[in-house]
C-alpha cells in the first residue's frame, strides 16, 4: 500500500474505526447473505463432486467429502463456540490441498513401479496385450466393410475383399460368400445390399463398443472391424488364460506369468505393456544397490551442499556489505543506488539465467571478450561450478541486501555508539555488536535460503542443465544438484520416466532438508539467547 493510492484517513482515530466497521458490516444481514452464498456454492461443488465420484465408485473419497462438507456447514452455523475453527478452516483446507495431498501422492508413488511401461492398470494392460499381439495371418485379407442389420434385425458385416473384389456376409458365427449381385460396391464403398439395412451416421457410431468386440471367425483368425468402413483379418498369437492369470503363446505354448513387478514374463521375455503396481521398498533399495543411481549420488550430494552453502554465504556477504555501505548517513543518491541494486531481483530469474548462459559462453561470451580472458566458464567441471554459484549469488544478493538493510536500521544506534565510547574499533563493533544482532533476524532467512537453493532446480537447469558431463555417467553432469539429478534419472535412465524412483529420491531429499532445517533452527535459538 503506498501513500498516494490507498485511501488512508487523515487521523489515527479514523484509521482505527474503518476496520471494525468493515467487520461489523459482515456480521449483519449482508454478512449472512455472503456466508450463505459462499456455503451454497461450496455445497453445490461438493454435491457435484460426490455425484461424479459415485459414478466412478470412489467410496472412500465420497465418505471423506460428505463428512468434510457436513463439518464445515455445521461449524459455520455453530455460533460463538466455533469462532476459532471458522478462522482455521480455510487455512487447513488450503494446507491439505497444496501441501499434504502432493506429499501423500509422492509417498504413494515411491512405493510403486510407476514408469515407462507401467502406467495403466492390470486389466487395461491385459486388454492392450491382447490387441497388440494380434497379427495378420499369411495372406491375411483386408476388407471394405459396411455394418448392417439383416431382415431379422441381427448385426452383420457386409464385406468386400480389397484385392479380389469378392463379397461376403460376416456374422459372429462365420463368413459366407454373398450371392452374386447381392452386394453393390463401387469406389471402395459398399452402397447397398438386398435384404439388409446398412447403418449410417449416429446409428453406426453408437455401435462402436459392440464393434470393438465383434469378430467374424475365419479358421484360427478372425475378421475385426477397424474403422467405420474397413475390416481386417487378424490372428491372435497369445491367449489369456483368465483362470490361471497367465498368457500362453500359441506357437510354442510358452507361459508368461505375472512376475509381481507389474509384467507378464517368460524367462527374459517380457510382454508390453506392463501395469502399475506396488513394489514395496524396491525403489529405495535401488538407490543403495543400483550402481547407476548410487555412484553419482555421493558426488552430487556433496556438490548440492557446496552449491546451496556457497550461494547463501556469498550472496549474504555481498548483500550485507552493500547494505552497510549504503546505510551511511548523508550519502548522496542513496535511493538511486538502492533501486539499481534491486534490479536483478526484479527481472524474471530464468531470463537472467539464460542471458548469463550467453554471457559466459567461453568463445562468444561477453565476459571473456571484455576481460580478454579465456576461462571455460561452462565447459570445465570446476569453472562451471563457480559459474553456478556466482550467477545464483547474483540473483540472491538483492534479497539479502534488502533484508540486511532493514535489519541494520532496526539496530539501535545507542548500542554502536556505546561500543565506540568503550573504545571498540569499527571491525570489533561490527563483529561483536552489529553482526550478532543482525543474525538474530536474518539467520532464519539464511536457513530458508539454503533450503531453497538446495532444491534450486531452475538455476541449474537454465544455466548449465547439469553439464558439463565429465565422468562416466550418462545421467549426472558436473553441476547437477540432487533435484536436477533426480529429474534426469526420472526421464533419462533405462526406458525413461521412472516416476517411482524419482519419488523415492525426492522423499530422501525431503528428510535431508528437514534435518538441516531442524538443526539450524535449534541453533538460532542459541543466538536469540545472546540478546
Amino acid at each position, binding site marked *: 500500500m503506498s501513500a498516494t493510492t490507498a485511501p488512508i484517513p487523515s487521523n489515527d482515530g479514523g484509521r482505527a474505526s474503518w476496520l471494525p466497521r468493515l467487520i461489523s458490516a459482515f456480521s449483519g444481514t449482508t454478512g449472512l447473505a455472503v456466508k450463505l452464498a459462499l456455503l451454497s456454492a461450496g455445497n453445490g461443488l461438493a454435491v457435484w463432486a460426490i455425484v461424479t465420484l459415485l459414478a466412478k465408485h470412489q467410496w472412500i473419497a465420497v465418505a471423506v467429502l460428505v463428512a468434510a462438507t457436513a463439518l464445515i*456447514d455445521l461449524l459455520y452455523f455453530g455460533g460463538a463456540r466455533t469462532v476459532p475453527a471458522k478462522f482455521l478452516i480455510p487455512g487447513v483446507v488450503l494446507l491439505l490441498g497444496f501441501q499434504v495431498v502432493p506429499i501423500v501422492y509422492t509417498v504413494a508413488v515411491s512405493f510403486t513401479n510407476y514408469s515407462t511401461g507401467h502406467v495403466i492398470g492390470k486389466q487395461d494392460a491385459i486388454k492392450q496385450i491382447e490387441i497388440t499381439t494380434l*497379427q495378420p495371418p499369411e495372406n491375411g485379407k483386408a476388407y471394405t466393410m459396411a455394418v448392417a442389420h439383416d431382415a431379422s434385425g441381427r448385426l452383420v458385416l457386409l464385406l468386400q475383399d480389397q484385392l479380389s473384389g469378392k463379397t461376403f456376409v460376416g456374422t459372429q458365427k462365420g463368413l459366407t460368400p454373398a450371392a452374386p449381385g447381392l452386394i453393390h460396391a463401387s469406389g471402395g464403398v459398399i452402397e447397398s445390399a438386398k435384404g439388409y439395412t446398412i447403418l449410417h451416421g449416429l446409428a453406426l457410431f453408437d455401435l462402436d463398443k459392440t464393434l*470393438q468386440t465383434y469378430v467374424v471367425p475365419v479358421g484360427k483368425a478372425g475378421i475385426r472391424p477397424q474403422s467405420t468402413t474397413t475390416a481386417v483379418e487378424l490372428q491372435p498369437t497369445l491367449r489369456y488364460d483368465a483362470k490361471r492369470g497367465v498368457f500362453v503363446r500359441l506357437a510354442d505354448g510358452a507361459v508368461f506369468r505375472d512376475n509381481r513387478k507389474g509384467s507378464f514374463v517368460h524367462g527374459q521375455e517380457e510382454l508390453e505393456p506392463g501395469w502399475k503396481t506396488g513394489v514395496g521398498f524396491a525403489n529405495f533399495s535401488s538407490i543403495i544397490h543400483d550402481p547407476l543411481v548410487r555412484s553419482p549420488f555421493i558426488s552430487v550430494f556433496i556438490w548440492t551442499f557446496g552449491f546451496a552453502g556457497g550461494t547463501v554465504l556469498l550472496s549474504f556477504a555481498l548483500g550485507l556489505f552493500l547494505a552497510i555501505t549504503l546505510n551511511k548517513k548523508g550519502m548522496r543518491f542513496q535511493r538511486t543506488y538502492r533501486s539499481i541494486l534491486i534490479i536483478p531481483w526484479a527481472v524474471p530469474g530464468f531470463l537472467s539465467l539464460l542471458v548469463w548462459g550467453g554471457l559466459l559462453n567461453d568463445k562468444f561470451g561477453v565476459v571473456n571478450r571484455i576481460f580478454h580472458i579465456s576461462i571455460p566458464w561452462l565447459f570445465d567441471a570446476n569453472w562451471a561450478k563457480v559459474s553456478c554459484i556466482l550467477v545464483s549469488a547474483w540473483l540472491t544478493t538483492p534479497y539479502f541486501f534488502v533484508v540486511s538493510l532493514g535489519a541494520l536500521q532496526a539496530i539501535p544506534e545507542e548500542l554502536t555508539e556505546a561500543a565506540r565510547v568503550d573504545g571498540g574499533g569499527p571491525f570489533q563493533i561490527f563483529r561483536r555488536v552489529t553482526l550478532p544482532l543482525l543474525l538474530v533476524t536474518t539467520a532464519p532467512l539464511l536457513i530458508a535460503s539454503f533450503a531453497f537453493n538446495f532444491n534450486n532446480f531452475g538455476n541449474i537447469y537454465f544455466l548449465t542443465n547439469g553439464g558439463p558431463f565429465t565422468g562416466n555417467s550418462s545421467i549426472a553432469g558436473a553441476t547437477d544438484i540432487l533435484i536436477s539429478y533426480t529429474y534426469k534419472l526420472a526421464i533419462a535412465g533405462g526406458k525413461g520416466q521412472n516416476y517411482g524412483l524419482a519419488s523415492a529420491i525426492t522423499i530422501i531429499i525431503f528428510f535431508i532438508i528437514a534435518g538441516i532445517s531442524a538443526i539450524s533452527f535449534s541453533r538460532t535459538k542459541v543466538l536469540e539467547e545472546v540478546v
Partner: protein
Amino acid sequence: MKSRTRLIALLVVVVAGMFAAFAGSVHAAKSAGATLTIWTDQNRKDAVTTVANAWAAKNPGVTVNVVAIQNFTDQRDKLGTVDVSAAPDIITAAHDWTGQLAANGLVEPIYLSAAVKKQFPAYTLNAFSYGTAIKKLYGVPTQIENIGLVVNTKLVKVPTTFAQLESEALAYKKAHHAAVGIAVQQGSGGDAYHMYPFFSGLGGYVFGVNSAGNLDPSNIGVASKTLLAHASLVDKWNKEGLINSAVDGSTAQSLFLKKQAAFWITGPWNSQLLEQSGLKFKVIQVPKIIDNAVPFLGVQGFMVTKWAGVHGVDALAQDFVANYATTPSAQVSLALADGRYPANTTAGKQVTDPVLAEFGKAGVGGVPMPNIPQMNSVWGGLGAAWVKATKGSGATKAATAFKSAAHAIAEAIG
C-alpha cells in the same frame, strides 16, 4: 442466531447446493452424439481443425474438438495421467514417441490398406512401428523433417565433397577471422541431433537391428569400429576450428546470418527466417565423409489413443487417421501449414516451395530417430561426447570420448 433460524439457513444452503449440482449434471448430459477429441499444438491447430472438419462434414453427427496443448511434447507426457473425460482420441505425434507410448499401452495399432501403404516411403511407416515381439504400426505419417547443410552461395561454392567443404569453410574462417568454419549448434549441454550428420558420416550408429528387424538396445554403435578408426578426423576438425561446441543454437544462427560463417546446419523450421534474411543460399546434404553423412529423420503424424475405445469412437478415430489423413490433399494442407514436407509421396510432388524441396533432398537415405524408449538414455551421453571432443583447446580425444559415452549409455540402459 436462534437455532430455528440456523436450521432454516442450513436447509437453504443444502437446497441451493442441490440445485447447483442439478444444473451442472443437466449441462453435462447435453453432450450426446459422437465427439472426437484431437490434441495438437498451437502451430498446427488451424491446419488440423480444417482437415478434421472436412472429414467430419462427410460423417454427419460427428463433431471434432481440436485442443491445442501448449507444448508439442506435453501431448506425450500428459497422455498417461489425463482424466478419461478430457482424454484425446487422437494425438499429433512425433515418431520417436512410438516406443514409449506403445510400451505404456496408451496407443492403438493401425492397419493401413495395401493401396495406402504404397503411397508412403517405407521408412516413414517403419518409424511409427514398434514391438519387442510383434511389430505394429502405431501412427500414420503426415510430415517429415530433417536438417541439412545451408550454404551461403554468395560467399562460398557449394561443396560436392567433404574435403571441399572443409577447405572452403576453413578458408572463409581464416579470411574473416571467424571463430568456426561450420555453424552447428551444441552448447555445453550437447546436441546429438544436430551432430548426427558427422556421426553417421564417420560410421557411427545408435542402435543396431536384430534378426526380427527391431532396434536392439543392447547393440550400441556409439563407439562403432568404423567410428573409432576415423575418430582422429574429429580431433583434426577440432584443432582446425571447423566445428566448436561453444556454438549453441542462437550463436549458430547469428554466425550464419551475420556472415561470420558460410555454412549452417539447421532444419526447415528456419526456412522462413532464411528466406527473409535476403541471403542467397542452397540446402544440401553434408557431403560423404567415410559413409554418407545423413541426418536423423523426424516423422510426424497421427496416433489413435486407447481412450478412443473407452469413449466409443474407436472406429471413427481409425477412419479419420487411416482413411482420411493419409490422402494427398489432407497431407498437403497439414504439411504446408507448419513448413514441413508431406510424408505421402503423391503429396510430396505437389510441393513447389524450393527450400522445402531442398531440405527434402538433404534427407535422402537418412535414419529415423530411434523410436524405442531406451533412446532417452542416449541423447545426453552422445551429445556430451561431441562437446568433450570439440571444445577447442583441452578437448578430449574423440576416440576416448565416444568410448566412454558408449560405456555410460550401455550402463544407463541397464
